[in-house]
């Protein structure tokens, strides 16, 4: 099934991706954010907080936003 996957980490990513039917939020996270922990991200499905075991539906909008994003001072 096709969902909108958004990852606001690093350079950012936002595009439609295909995932297997029955994929849960946690499963998608494991597949897409291999080096991260769910606790270090704000996870939203259709702009709402979601449980890790929530099963994704076709057309869902899933976003992962890191809780720690470093700003800087301009050189």
């Amino acid at each position, binding site marked *: 099934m096709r969902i909108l996957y958004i990852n606001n980490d690093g350079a950012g990513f936002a595009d439609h991706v295909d995932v297997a039917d029955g994929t849960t939020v946690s499963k998608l996270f494991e597949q897409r954010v291999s080096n991260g922990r769910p606790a270090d991200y704000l996870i939203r499905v259709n702009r709402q907080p979601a449980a890790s075991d929530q099963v994704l539906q076709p057309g869902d909008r899933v976003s992962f936003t*890191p809780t*720690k994003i470093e700003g800087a001072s301009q050189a």
Partner: protein
Amino acid sequence: MPTFNRQFWRAAGHLEHHLKRRVDHGPPDLPSFVCFQRLRVLTDRLHVMEQRRLSVSAKSVSMALHSELDRCQSQITSALEAMSTRCNVDAIPTQACLYAELIALATEFDRCEVDLRKGTLSVVTECIVLEDLDLGPFQISLDWKSAHGSTSKYVVHALEPSCPEYRSHITHPHVMNDRLCEGEAQSALRQALQSGRLTDFFQIINRVLHTYNSSSPYASIDDWNGTNCQDCGANIASDCSHCHACGDALCDDCCTCCSICETSACVGCLQICPGCENQVCSHCANVCERCSKSVCPECLDTTTQLCQECDNVAESEDCEPANGETADDCEAGIEVQPAGLGEVAVPA
């Protein structure tokens, strides 16, 4: 199901209109030929200044050239982003989508306000606390009418500012003059705004405010409340003088310097030369080989490596008479022969 918010619906319509304007805005705004001519003139002038070693003039021209290049770059970047949007018209969110974003925004943040007249969308964060430093809440305001490509204007304003000592224009380690230095969030912010993902946009800024990057702040948290002079304890600015030897912060009154090399130092790291009573740092001081006192280079005899006092003592010790010598002999420097030297017994 949340109740219909008419103001948000109208704001979503305005936002959709402004986002579309980026596409229907006519040809991209490129730097003019005059701009490139000016860049060439400044570059040539800088080259001449440097050849003639006119450093002050060269610096002034460098700054002008830098400013002009920066302006050119901004124009080219905006034009590039406008072209990117044109190439991806389908990515412009609909009014319904933007309305959903605003509803979600109001859920993520306690306060979410729309000003249709000014064309601004604002949220208020919770109190930002970084390493026990309470910076208070911040208002993030997006001016959608200034949208040019993905570089709309937004400000990050401290509602209960807590500024570092002597720097009231810094309200957060990464916010100066209400402008956030985006750091690693820059690209994600541009993409979120370009796509109309308002919730992501404000949430990314919020996360930057909640994160302290100790390697590159406008002002570090350690120095936020200033520091204390290590000698007298007075509260001083963080960019105060420091002792070159031990690194301690010093106020203007307590900061002294070595009389030889003139580097700044605290009283504890300077020694008083017993000869001339000048203050000398450990790098400049020499040690008398006899008494081990530290003296300045001018008060140490380079031949004997002795201080004046020890040198005098050594001289007087050299002149003390041995057995059979008189003080006069000693002073005359006559070498005294032992009694009977060169004498032979002469028979009667």
